[in-house]
């Protein structure tokens, strides 16, 4: 990416990083409860894919979705207020960290069942196809989901019906404590997609430019009606699976090696080398993202809890279907 697009991608990655580092503090302070899954280390994936999407396109995600939501433009304050369990949150405090929904941004969750989002993505794409809209649906999931039947059923169905889905597999090498090679007989993930006649590329997920290139290609092909695509985004989570995970299944050396490939540091270097970023500009970006996060914290703190007698609202629809 060049010029403003490059700066935007860096800004997005910095925002995600700053936001989540603050989340860790807020979790220790018991402001955020439940499960908290961090995206730190994987920022280049969300920051590379989202710019390729149009406002009408749709996103389906997992419980590790703060980065996807922020990169999609869901306001940090509404995300954090959700994690504080406040009415001002995207889901009025009902969903929390794992279930961010923001339909205005075409963001369809936040799914905490591994593989659970894939069939939904197929259905959203089916709706767009049947209604004659040229939107695409980007569906994020971890490599662990590939072992679930829902992955295979969804890829086959999307391919069979030539639906506009981009399957974005974030391969961070571990599903909780289970390394890929301990859960897949065939570790070449693109081959699995290819077996359903779904075009598949494996991409360096630590390189935001590489991700952005692949995303543009995929969106072009999928929007043109050529059926689904599969992107394997090779990445790594720098933190434990969740705040409950003692992280005993990876070596410190391995984590350190991946940290040397920090997608933010790497991209700062790229932009510096290209002459589009200097110290002052970087500092300004950092200040800007810090201000966004400070604002989000203040907003979430000042938010209001849902009155208990409103608790059963939205179990059923309050309005007739459009």
């Amino acid at each position, binding site marked *: 990416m060049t010029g403003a697009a490059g700066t935007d991608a860096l800004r997005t990655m910095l925002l995600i990083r700053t936001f989540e580092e603050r989340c860790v503090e807020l979790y220790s302070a018991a402001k955020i*409860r*439940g*499960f908290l899954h961090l995206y730190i280390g994987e920022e280049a994936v969300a920051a590379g894919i989202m710019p390729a999407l149009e406002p009408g396109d749709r996103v389906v995600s997992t419980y590790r979705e703060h980065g996807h939501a922020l990169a999609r433009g869901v306001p940090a304050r509404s995300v954090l207020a*959700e994690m504080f*369990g*406040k009415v001002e949150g995207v*889901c009025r*405090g*009902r*969903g*929390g*960290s*794992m*279930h961010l929904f923001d339909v205005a941004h075409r963001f369809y969750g936040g*799914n*905490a*069942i*591994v*593989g*659970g989002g894939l069939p939904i993505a197929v259905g959203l794409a089916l709706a767009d196809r049947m209604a004659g809209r040229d939107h695409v649906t980007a569906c994020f999931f971890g490599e*662990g*989901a590939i*072992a*679930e*039947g*829902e992955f295979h059923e969804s890829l086959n169905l999307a391919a069979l019906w030539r639906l506009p889905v981009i399957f974005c597999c974030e391969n961070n090498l571990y*599903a*909780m*404590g*289970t390394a890929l090679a*301990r*859960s*897949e007989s065939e570790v070449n993930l693109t081959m699995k997609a290819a077996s359903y006649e779904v075009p598949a590329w494996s991409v360096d997920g630590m390189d935001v430019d590489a991700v952005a290139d692949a995303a543009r290609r995929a969106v072009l092909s999928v929007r043109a009606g050529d059926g689904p695509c599969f992107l394997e985004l090779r990445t790594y989570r720098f933190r434990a699976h969740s705040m409950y995970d003692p992280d*005993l*299944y990876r070596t410190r050396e391995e984590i350190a090696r991946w940290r040397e490939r920090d997608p933010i540091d790497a991209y700062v270097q790229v932009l510096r080398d290209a002459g589009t970023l200097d110290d002052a500009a970087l500092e300004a970006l950092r200040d800007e993202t810090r201000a966004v996060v400070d604002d989000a914290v203040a907003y979430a703190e000042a938010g209001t*809890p*849902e009155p*208990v007698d409103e*608790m*059963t609202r939205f*179990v059923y629809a309050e309005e007739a279907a459009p």
Partner: protein
Amino acid sequence: MSATEATARTMSYREALREAIREGMQADERVFLTGEDVGAYGGSFGVSRGLLDEFGPERIRDTPLSEAAFVGAGIGAAMGGMRPIVEVMTVNFSLLALDQIVNNAATIPHMSGGQVQIPVVVRMTTGAGRQLAAQHSHSLEGWYAHVPGLKVLAPATVADARWMLGPALADPNPVIVFEHGSLYNREGEIGDTAGPAGDITRASIRRPGRDLTFVAYGQSVWTALEAAETLASEGVEAEVLDLRVLRPLDTDAVISSVTRTHRAVIIDEMWRTGSLAAEVSALITEQAFYELDAPVGRVCTQELPIPYAGHLEQAALPNTTRVLAAAREAVGGDG
């Protein structure tokens, strides 16, 4: 070690389960443990920590994220003569394996005219209360207890966690074990031999009382005991009956308790509609109707997906306040 020393042995619910698994594996080499992250990770709730080193990867068998396949494989292995303990991380994910449990494990012994036995134990965490939001907070014990062919257990105490697994493994039928997520850190005494905790047919009175029966299982037993303490200070003696076995239900225990106390409040973390509490209530109405001095009360989870926000979640669950209100209503004017 003297008998009294042994009897005073205290451990956590988590450790009790681990010791039970270890004992089962030592006693019978056909027993193995399988499921997601049971090995290298030590179990998502830490139950199997250390067992991989002790028994090796053949018998502490990690699986991919493939609930339908590994639960089904557990069922098949049981058909093939093994004694699998399948750990499904939580009941929420067991929905992906429901087909295997309901369509295979529960039907094949009968459908085959008794030719096939399926001695599999499927353990899973259940329940809410930890702000994990709707998809991680289900209580679906009654769904499983609905199905003939399955046996369903809900150990609420550390002793039950320690001793119910043995008879479950010895049982020739598929046995589903529900471990409430709030219980793993609970400490308690286990005794030196199984005693009544080693039975998987009977309910158990956790607190005797004459004025009212609380019927509960799992975490709700502790909610009931807490409420019973408060009631005692008001002069109301509540009996707490822990069902322990959700299928087949120990009907006699329920009926005999209600026959003594004449009042019943059932506490169940399932949603009220179609809950296990509904079944227990119907049993009481059918078999002890003329013993009742008040309508049977039910305290269940409110009819909504469990919300993330802590205050909403607590309000949705059968908390002590709601249990006390139901108890006071049951004992009414003459309480």
